[in-house]
């Protein structure tokens, strides 16, 4: 399985600011996914990011709030914009081919004050 790293591992931010989370994979992958895990909750898919195309967002998530970049086959970023305390969560990236097993990164713990 691929080795996935995320930066930052954790951050504390002020409301109204934005944070960009990076996800780096040690091999080329077709699909990258971004998930949110709110405190005490399970994982919810935010969007799917394919290289060379616009990200596909799930219901309840919009590009203005969570812009995503996928400049190449090993890297993606997720920005959490205009943050509020409700955005405090763990943000996880995962990788996997079409209808294949997904492997997850270590996550980014975000606290918004």
């Amino acid at each position, binding site marked *: *399985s691929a080795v996935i790293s995320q930066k930052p591992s954790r951050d504390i931010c002020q409301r109204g600011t934005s944070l960009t989370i990076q996800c780096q994979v040690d091999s080329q992958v077709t699909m990258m996914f971004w998930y949110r895990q709110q405190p005490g909750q399970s994982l919810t898919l935010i969007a799917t990011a394919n290289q060379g195309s616009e990200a596909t967002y799930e219901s309840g998530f919009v590009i203005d709030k969570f812009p995503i970049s996928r400049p190449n086959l090993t890297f993606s970023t997720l920005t959490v914009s205009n943050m509020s305390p409700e955005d405090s969560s763990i943000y996880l990236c995962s990788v996997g081919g079409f209808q294949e*097993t997904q492997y*997850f990164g*270590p996550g980014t713990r975000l606290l918004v004050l």
Partner: protein
Amino acid sequence: EDQVTQSPEALRLQEGESSSLNCSYTVSGLRGLFWYRQDPGKGPEFLFTLYSAGEEKEKERLKATLTKKESFLHITAPKPEDSATYLCAVQAIGNAGNMLTFGGGTRLMVKP
């Protein structure tokens, strides 16, 4: 809409006390059912994929089974290091098949 329900929400076991975790699901067409382990502050770690009813997979003290409506994760003679949250997820066949739908998880605590 795909749905996954895990039970119990939390489970406390004594070391060596075997038990099972349940994952009930509804999906339009199942491509695969996945089990992950998540330790506090970390990302989910992949354990198993099950594709069809009757399939079983084992890894150390863990054994996963699948029927048409549910999956079980059996833990035999657990050790304290098995303490973690166990997540179940389903993936549907078709264009939406990239998406994993997760259950709420079972938090397992194994006491020495």
